[in-house]
């Protein structure tokens, strides 16, 4: 299963400025084995009783016996043993609620894990119905690493049971590697948009590949974020803008305020306005925004069981971001699935050197400002009129992956600081699209059924525009309701940044 060396350095997990010093029993990093070779024993410093109790030293001569041999690779046994089958995960699974054939996360995780201990057991086909929303993770009262189990089961299913010559495999591969398509698409954005928007092409996609014709392909921007950033003068310009902002803000002009932006493929190719908003907002707070070399976060690859593709992408990302993190630069993301991947999935699935350090220093962009700046105060003081925003009321949907990071309340809380703007939370249902999931013909209907509740709430909301952090949730919201969708960073930009856009264009 593993092709990497086993670098899993303890220092990486425990050390660093931001690493957890409390390390109580709730510290997830210490509990769960990496599937990629980091064995449970390596991690026993966290005090996980399931590892054999090395942390316990009771003076009564008690010496725990190591019952199970050290695992050589995927050791999810502790997680599986922690499941006491309360089935709470099943009641939070949005797919199980609408699909009568889906046996739910408890089966996909701990039960399947036990079943496949015997060699003659295949992974059940229903693993492809899991949408990787990861809601089961935070529902579990016993900290079972459900999504990690699903990711590994799905990868094994694709590796061992999926026909590599099937159209479905290549369709999934194509969807998972959206970034590769996007690079091509962005080379001739207008042509690509015209072709992909063609209904004949859509019919062919549906019939041949199983990519639903119900959805409109997202348009490629005529200029990618990265080429905008380069044209604008690259890092030097951002450093200078940040310096001027610090001067304006009466801060230390020579302060080392830099962030590394993980924009991912979608903000780069499809919604550069979100990425630009991030740059403008961070620069206005005096941060230089760096955009190191990067690939897709891997989220669509995990969801399609293409773990090797994801590993390659993760290697590039961890490699280029860990260097900056070493240098004291924190990582910020505008997409909550990207931050989820860097913070949780990488450490759970790979042991690429530097992964833990990157995870411990990666933030959602808005969360970062909230922690490090007086974002609430500046928003409250901002004299924003609805004219600046063009909108006064938003229907906000918290993406599942934002929810899993404890970010679901953030946007509504922040926007309530603005005088004339309302943001209404449309409830905690899943949007249903889950990245590439809702694009597949066989899942389209399920995806829309899951989305129903959100659509209903959006329509009931007294709002003119939709809002979310996740690009595919945005697609689903638009598709289901016709609302235009904005990213919170765009509102922050309108509220806090004076004439940034014109400044850029002048430069």
């Amino acid at each position, binding site marked *: 299963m593993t092709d990497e060396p086993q670098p899993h350095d303890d220092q990486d*997990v425990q050390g*660093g400025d*931001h690493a*957890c*010093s*409390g*390390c*109580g*029993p*709730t*510290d*997830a990093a210490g509990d769960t084995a990496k599937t990629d070779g980091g064995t449970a024993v390596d991690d026993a410093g966290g005090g996980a009783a399931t590892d054999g*109790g090395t*942390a*316990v030293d*009771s*003076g*009564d001569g008690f010496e725990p016996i190591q019952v199970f041999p050290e695992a050589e690779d995927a050791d999810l046994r502790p997680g599986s043993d922690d499941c006491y089958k*309360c*089935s*709470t995960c*099943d*009641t*939070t*699974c949005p797919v*199980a*609620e*609408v*699909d*009568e054939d*889906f*046996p*739910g996360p408890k089966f996909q995780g701990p039960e399947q894990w036990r079943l496949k201990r015997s060699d003659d057991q295949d992974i059940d086909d229903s693993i492809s119905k899991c949408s990787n929303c990861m809601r089961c993770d*935070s*529902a579990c*009262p016993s*900290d079972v690493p459900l999504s990690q189990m699903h990711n590994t089961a799905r990868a094994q299913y694709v590796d061992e049971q999926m026909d590599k010559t099937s159209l479905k495999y290549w369709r999934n591969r194509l969807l998972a590697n959206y970034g590769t398509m996007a690079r091509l698409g962005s080379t001739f954005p207008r042509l690509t948009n015209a072709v992909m928007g063609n209904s004949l092409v859509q019919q062919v996609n549906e019939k041949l590949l199983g990519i639903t014709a119900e959805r409109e392909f997202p348009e490629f921007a005529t200029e990618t974020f990265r080429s905008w950033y380069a044209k604008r003068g690259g890092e030097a310009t951002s450093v200078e803008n940040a310096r001027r902002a610090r001067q304006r803000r009466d801060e230390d002009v020579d302060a080392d305020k830099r962030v590394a932006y993980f924009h991912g493929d979608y903000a780069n190719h499809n919604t550069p306005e979100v990425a630009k908003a991030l740059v403008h907002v961070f620069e206005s707070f005096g941060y230089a925004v760096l955009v190191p070399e990067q690939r897709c976060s891997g989220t669509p690859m995990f969801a399609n069981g293409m773990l090797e593709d994801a590993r390659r992408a993760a290697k590039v990302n961890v490699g280029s971001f860990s260097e900056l993190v070493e240098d004291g630069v924190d990582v910020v993301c505008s997409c909550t699935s990207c931050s989820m991947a860097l*913070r949780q999935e990488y450490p759970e699935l790979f042991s690429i050197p530097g992964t*833990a350090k990157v*995870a*411990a*220093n*990666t*933030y959602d962009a808005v*969360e970062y400002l909230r*922690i*490090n*700046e*007086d*974002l609430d*105060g500046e928003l409250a003081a901002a004299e924003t009129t609805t004219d600046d925003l063009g909108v006064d009321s938003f229907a906000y949907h918290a993406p599942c992956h934002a*929810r*899993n*990071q*404890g970010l679901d*309340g*953030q946007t509504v*809380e922040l926007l309530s600081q603005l005088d004339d703007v309302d943001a209404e*939370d449309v409830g905690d249902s899943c949007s249903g699209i889950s990245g590439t999931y809702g694009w597949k013909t066989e899942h389209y209907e399920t995806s829309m059924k899951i989305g129903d*509740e959100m659509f209903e709430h959006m329509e009931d909301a007294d709002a003119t525009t939709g809002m979310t952090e996740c690009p595919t949730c945005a697609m689903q919201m638009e598709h289901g309701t016709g609302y235009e969708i904005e990213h919170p960073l765009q509102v922050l930009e309108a509220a806090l940044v004076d004439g940034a856009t014109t400044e850029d264009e002048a430069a």
Partner: protein
Amino acid sequence: MAIRDDVLVVGGGLAGMTAALAAAREGASVRVVTDSESTLQQASGLVDVLGYPNPHDARDGDRDGDGGDAGDGSSAPPVANPFDAIDSLPEDHPYQLVGVDALRGGLAIFDDATGDLYRGGHTERNALVPTVGGTVKPTARYPASVAPGLASDDRTTLLVGFDGDTDVDAPNVAAHLRAVGVPFDVGGVTVEFPGDPDGTDQQTRLAHALDTDEDGVRRRLAERVKRSLKRADDVFGDASDTDEGAATGSAVAGFGDVERVGLPAVLGRDRPRQVRDALAEHLDAAVFELPPAPPSLPGVRLRYRLRDALRDAGVAVTTGNPVVDHDVEPGAGDGGDAGKNAAPRITTIYADRNGTRTPYEPEAVVLATGGLVGGGIDSERDAVYEPVFDCPVSHPEDRYDWSDADAFGSHAFARFGVRIDADGRVLDADGDPLYANLTAAGGVVGGYDAAAEKSASGVSLATGYVAGRTASADASSSHPTPTDVTADR
């Protein structure tokens, strides 16, 4: 810069939410931070206050001899009025510490928040609710969906389970209820849930189908229930069922004699009222749910309702990040005055996400992380501890004294928890406040055996009420007027 609120509640169960609502009512800005989603999803949805004040008395009295304490009537009956029984509790019981008014205050918050979703507020007396285990539980508040099923009601009752659903074995539940002598005819049948022949669907899927009445499922289910009663004699038990020989089956000739129907608790998640009304109309009988084992839709509904109440009260909720660390500043004085001002103060709390730490700087903190099961109290081989603030948890030195040899005996571990005073403040080993701004509520508080007493929810409400109010008062005393807040910062 950290995220600032007046009151930060650590934990999002019933105690934490009650504390948050109590503090918000007093005008504090409040945030709830939780490790994972609320455990109310695992709860039955019943809100007990006190069922058995001295659950181990009969058992202890039996130590001398015959060993016959189970099922022979020697265990005490449930208490009719829990409020009257509070005086008989040990002095260090949380109810004695925070007082009966705190319990009333907590229940008032609960009643306000849950509105028409719950019943029982009309009286201080316990209701007797038949459960999915065939027992009858004394409880103070119960979901409206459960109300028509009360054991004190003598209407003829048919319990219905679904094929393939191992959680509700209706004939067995009915037999149990007959055995404990409920004052009504009760029988149990099993039917196929329409569209789910093998019974593999998740309960949320069944609830969704009933919510949306997909394929006329409400009517189809009602038809199946009606048709299920072909041989009522078997269903409603016969003479061999009970020693008394009170054959009750003969009174029920067919479905026409059934006055109420109890079903598994899957009768809708979003529109439970509508689902029950529709089924009742099709069946021409009252319809109720059997309070379930986890996972629990009544628990999910309660969680939604309380979450809405928090939102309406302006409480911010951050779910998914455990609190792992905190900073403390020393207190005003070491000697002399041992009051709360002498105690150190918690200044910053850190929540963790794989090593990323989010700082919060509240004025006051409520600890509501649950007990041994919820993770608010933890143990190693030779120590019991409270993991977030390392509050003292007293326990016998020898771990073999932590539990009783009798499985249903009086276990020390059941009472493990932090000590609080009348204001809900966490106390140190000497009985002084551990921190100037830390209170605790719910399962993390020690001194009571929630499972044996049937007091878990009531203690959460009472201690949550007090802890929230104290925290709010602490917060407002640390910044006298709201306008000073920004200046101080």
